[in-house]
């Protein structure tokens, strides 16, 4: 019965708070910036949830696109829970062969999205895109980041998520209005 006291006396100080992990891997923010090819101001779609899955609800910003216009799309992924803010898109780019972003639009949304970047194997990553809008319409756009997808599977490099597999790191849905 005395032994535990002995052991307890050499354990760590109980009043010492544990060290918080540095949440460097977390993705808190997605910013999809669309810039008209022919000039003009950019349109921004963003999803921001700085404190992760719990706590405060995410802040979502949605923009309005012009009809019959070409845009270049740039996807930026950030971790804003750490100081300084870290750029996750750079990490994705570095491991381009292991990541792919998918853009799925509802059929009534009259717009096309194409990849304009490639990884070292010549397959798309999806951080850079080109968008061409057509008629006035409204619908959802779902942006999905997959980790370790099978890029060689049927239709995957063309942007079809169905056979991609892998693990979803991001899945954000915006309502897009073309006006």
């Amino acid at each position, binding site marked *: *019965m005395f*032994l*535990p006291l002995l*052991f*307890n006396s050499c*354990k*760590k100080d*109980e*009043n010492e*708070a*544990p*060290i*918080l*992990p*540095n*949440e*460097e*891997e*977390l*993705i*808190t*923010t*997605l910013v999809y910036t669309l810039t008209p090819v022919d000039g003009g101001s950019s349109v921004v779609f963003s*999803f921001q*949830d*700085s*404190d*992760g*899955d*719990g*706590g*405060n*609800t*995410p802040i979502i910003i949605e923009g309005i696109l012009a009809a019959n216009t070409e845009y270049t799309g740039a996807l930026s992924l950030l971790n804003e*829970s750490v100081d300084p803010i870290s750029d*996750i898109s750079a*990490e*994705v780019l*570095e*491991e381009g062969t292991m990541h792919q972003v998918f853009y799925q639009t509802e059929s009534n949304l009259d717009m096309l999205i194409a990849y304009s970047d490639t990884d070292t194997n010549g397959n798309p990553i999806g951080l850079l895109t080109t968008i061409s809008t057509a008629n006035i319409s409204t619908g959802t756009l779902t942006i*999905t980041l*997959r*980790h*370790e997808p*099978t890029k060689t599977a049927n239709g995957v490099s063309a942007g079809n998520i169905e056979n991609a*597999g*892998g*693990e*979803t*790191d*991001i*899945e*954000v*849905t915006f309502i897009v209005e073309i006006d």
Partner: protein
Amino acid sequence: MKLTSLIRLLSLYLCFIQMVIQVSGQNCNITIQISVIDQNTVQALPLAVLHIAETSQNYIANESGNFVVHSLCRGEYHLQLSHLGYEDLEQTLYIRSDTLLFISLIYQSTVLNQITVEVSSNDHDERVSNTISRNEIAQESNKNFADILENIPGVQTIRNGSGISKPTIHGLSGNRLSIMNNGLPQSGQQWGNDHAPEIDAFVADNIIVVRGASSLAYPGAQSGAIILVEPRKITSEKKILGSFNFITQSNGSGQTLNTALEQRGKFLGWRASATIKLIGDRKTPDYYLTNTGQHEGSASIHFEKNLSDSWRSTMYYSYFQTELGLLRGSQIGNISDLEEAFGRPEPFNTSENFSFQIAEPKQRVKHHLLKITSKYYLTPTASLHFNYGIQLNDREEYDIRRGDRSSSPALSMTQWSHFSEAIFKKFRDENNSFSAGLQYWYIDNANQPETGILPLIPDYYSYQGSAYAIFQRSKQKAEYDIGLRYDVKDLFVWSISESLPREIRKVNHLFENYSLSGGINYTPSEAIKISTNIILAKRSPEVNEMYSFGLHQGVSGIEEGDPNLTEEKSAKLTTSFDIKVGPKLTFQILGYYHRFIDFIYLEPQEELRLTIRGAFPVFQYKQTNAEIMGSDLSLTYLPHPKFRLTLISSWLRGKNISRNLPLVFMPSSRIQGHIRYLFRNTEALVDNHLTISCRYVARQSHLREGQDFYPVPADYFLLGFSASTTMTVHGNKLQITLSGENILNKKYRDYLNRLRYFADEQGMNLILRVGMNFN
């Protein structure tokens, strides 16, 4: 009857053996007669059990306390005398001719283990029992600890793929179940459904499921069940004895090697054992389960020392280490991934090739256990026991992560646990016994910040002090027991805020629990025994139920604890009938009703939580009133001396009374049986038998629609076999067994396997075992 009760209460101790008469005999035609008497009363002791290792035969003493063993050959024999699950008493004899032996046994006031053992009292009665014996453990030591337990009625297994399994008893598992590993409460992360107990079954002599008042002697979950993993007493042989067990299996190309050495030396008794297990990717009938390998190693050392006639001490140390792969295709990021995984012909990332390699996602666990015991006899009928144990559990779980982070664990926890107890045991007379104990348990559970991820459960430490008392009394045809227990637990949790900036706050909870149990065993005749027991218990909420926060891997859902949970109250009534219909048929029917107030469970919330990975269902820990009722049936039929038929069946229903919904993750009805045919012994081969086994598991049909992500798997039927023989090689016993599981290569999924959303169960598996005892 009085005598039977007396024996039941005694630990038998071999005192001396007298060889009295020698009559000439021929080879293999020798008869020995053994008479067993109590040394003090000189009364005959019926119902003692004799096991002869060489012939693998068991004998039960008749009413005059006699065994008669025919057809023995000239040679050395190891006799083991045991009684109702007590420690085996071993003696080596060289038999030359017909012999009459008197063995007198000392009335020894050892332990109250008898109460524990009481539940397994049918072990030598050819009935299905709550105990898994040494031989069964050795036969199945390639399996996980929990899988071996499935042969006990009422015990099922929750799985997370092939390598990870944990027991569920009468519908309860995890926090509601305690495993006593060599007398210490197994200390690890029991809350996780994907956390298997860190135990190598091979170190155990017996695995026992305890019910009734004796369960109050153990810390942990009184409302559920207690599983005892008991190492055997070290041999009384002066020379070194050894055993060796090698198992090779086709599915997963698995190899398991166990070995143990022991000796009763001059100075002390010792035993050392070690196990190595190497299993690669398992295979369903159609594809490999990529990344489901298992690399396991363990070792233990055990010393026994009698410091004086009345003072005995033991020291035990064991180390267990495992690395387990999780099915690659089961790592998912969100609910869309899960939906995509359903109904695929094979999981994502299934490799065409077999591999022993384990990649992420995987688990790596190390467990140390050290125990020191001391037993001191105050008088021949009263003893004091001091036990102290320390455990270190180190669990790391790895996911597929971005960057180079896959090599850093996504979950990393270290748990220190110190347990000490002082027990007093007293036999007032042969019909009255009493035991009482004081216990102290300290746990310190810390997350390692190397993960870079907010922990699923926060750091905590707790102190628990407990006291219990158990009384047992037998009177004519009835035995009564009553037990009381009190626990007080002081828990400190380092709670982390959900919003930024992250803040850490120390929260204190104080819980008091009372448990009360009472039971009667009534034996109106030799043919029937009626047992009934009621247990009232409180269970304090565990840290995961109060503080878990985050996404649960494998099942897409956010789990949220509730710090305001109160104690769970429960009452369980169990009644069983052991009936012997003539010498050929025995069966046990057991029924139970378990009622809970403030039953803690995970309730799916209506709202979905929006995160950057999509919308997730939220599961919150809530309390409700619930009930679980069920029955287990076991039956043994011996239609012919060469045939033996065994059946086990269980049925249960769980209900959330407040919400009028079935409880989820409850085992479905099942029946399993085996028929064993015993072949005649030849000069070279003995104990030859062939067993055909089958199992039918019904579909979990009473869940409502929407209670699971995916339709519940269909019912299934599995067939297996086992053929075994034993031979003597240079005086050592060699046992060879060939067996097969799922020999029809049936494609199926099981409701209690959490990977049922992703993949089929294992296909056919052929197993060859070579076991040898040498000296």
